């Protein structure tokens, strides 16, 4: 009985519905790509950032350099962003 119901449901799926659901999946994937990589970048920058603040407190000259070191993990989230852009467009 249950099998028959799914069969009916499957036949009722129109092409538009499938397309719409695929679009939704794409959007989900894009969101996950940016969100998860964002979290990863955050974790990575956490340690660098705190060390950078410490180093700057001891010697102000290193500010420029540590600012750069802090943004190095940004690559991760940028890859995520690129993936999501490619997914969406």
């Amino acid at each position, binding site marked *: 009985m249950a099998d028959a119901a799914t069969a009916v449901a499957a036949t009722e799926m129109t092409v538009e519905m499938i397309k719409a659901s695929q679009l939704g999946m794409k959007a989900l994937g894009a969101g996950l790509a940016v969100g998860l990589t964002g979290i990863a970048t955050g974790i990575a920058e956490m340690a660098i950032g705190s060390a950078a603040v410490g180093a700057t407190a001891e010697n102000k000259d290193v500010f*420029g*350099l540590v*600012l*750069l070191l802090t*943004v*190095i993990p*940004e*690559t991760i989230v*940028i*890859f995520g*962003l*690129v993936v999501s*852009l*490619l997914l969406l*467009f």
Partner: protein
Amino acid sequence: MFTPEGMTRVLIAATKSQMEPVIREMYRQHLFHIEEFVEKDKKEYEGYRIGTPLPAANETSRQLLRLRGINNAFMIHEDEAETGGKQKHGHLKELVERELPSIEQEVEDLLSRRAKLDSQIKEYEQKIDALKPFASVPIDLELLRGFQMFSVFCGYISRNISLDIPHEILMSESKKDRFIVLIVPNQDRSIAEQALQNAQFQAVPVPEETGTAASRIGYYEGQVLAVKGELEEINRRLDEIKKRHKDFFLACNELLTADVEMAEAPLRFATTGESFIVEGWVPTERLETFRQGIHYATGGKVYVYELDQSEVEDVAPTEYHNVSFARPTEMLMDVYSRPRYTEIDPTLLISIIFPIFFGIILGDVGYGAILLVLSLGLQRFLKGDEGQKLLKVLRNASISSIIFGVLFSEFFGFSLPWDPILFSRHLNIGGHAGGHGPDVTSLMIMAIWIGVLQITLGRVLGMVNHARQDHGSHRIKAVMANLGWIMVLWGILAMLWAAFPLPFMPDLTGLPPIVMGLNMGSILGLVLILLGVVFIVRDSALEIVELPTILSHVLSYARLVGVGLSSVAIAMVVNFIAIGLIIEPQLESLTAFGVIIVIMGALVFVIGHLLNTILGMLGGGLQSLRLQYVEFFTKFYKGGGKKYTPFGMKKRFMED
């Protein structure tokens, strides 16, 4: 242009009697970078000792210390000087001898008087504080102490007390606390103490004063006022002195600093009993001027000798030698590391590439214009060399941003009246958005191309650097290894082209297959990769683990598109929220309340774009700088050069 200023290693030797004129002339010319002499136990150093300061050093240092103390007290800073006219050195020297001591004496007297008055005020205020609790007690203070038969308790309690013993009590209550003066016969003292303890008594000592507390407070407050008046007079006189002599103080500071530096210069020389030697670097172009100056100043009694420097070029100080356009970018180089004397100075390349990258990321006419106005406007307020350079870099970057804004057809996220000339970055955001969305694939390919070209350029520069710096068999290996990296990169590209048709890239898929389904392109790519790997391994086998960085570094340039698109997205979202969701619905039927909403919408618009400007500046600046530092510089640049700091100073307040 791509190399630092040429330096020549120079040795000066003379008798000690010539030491002072030589130091004076070196200081005046501001050209000679002294290599400090370090005593060593080696044979060739035998007999040489570090020199002793000139006789004037002690006295001058003392004078300088005194003057700096005064400058600190006045908080005079060099930047606030109005350099009206420069003083003659000789005249200034005379003034330092004749007038400075008396002015300094006056200032020091005033300062010590001020310190004394300050401490007096503190003393009075402490007395007032001690008296305050007794202000409401209408008894003379001397009546509260000195009894033999009675005990007096003064202090705060938390609740009322009742006593069964003979006593005299005075109580004053305020909102915050209760103050009590209790007098009991000595034999009942313990009972009173017990009762007070139950009421959480906190004792207050009776001040050593005569008369009522209120009158004493009045007296001391009068005293404080009088002292404050005197203080004001002193401050006024100090201000007057500061205003009158500020430039004089700064000029004296410069003169004495110069004198101290000159007097202490022999500490960096090598000396024997009767002679001295000093080694250092002079820009090759100015060598003749320097030599003539020394010759003239000493009447030719000094030996100036050019040393062979092929062995020691590594330790030569680096002075940038750039066209004026690239000069501000030197600041970005110093943030990373100054180039070594022997390596290529990429400042000019960065001064061209950095603004372009910034423009690609923040390509918007509106934001570019804001940053341009900001960088031009701040030039008046920001003092200091570094700040000015930074603003000039920002100015170039914002001009590039405007140019790319025109190419991308963007103005605060809106499109300009023409279609994007380069590629479209317009997103479909908002209720009635149309168009085909951003051309992400083309943009990505563009970013990849930029990456491939810049990394190749970096490796080519690496080949040049290794050819110039290395010696022996390592030299050829290192050059070949850099070539190997280029070959692997282009080999991978060739294989990709042979496998997939990509837009804006050569299409090699159509070539006929030769062996095992591989066509000419794939085979060429494969050969390039294999040869490249061999070259790399010959230099250092460990480098193999770095191979994946070829991909990750090239892909890293995708940030040019990614960060740029996110900035466009934020701009369009701000526009949609402010205009599409808040302002437009109200404009359809405007009411009084609607006007407020419209104003709020305008506020959202301004704040949103302000935030995005800051984000864009940070994102565009940091990300494109990072591409230079991490992706580009790691291919060829070592840095760690010594800054060229010639002996002497830039004179601001005096002239010879």
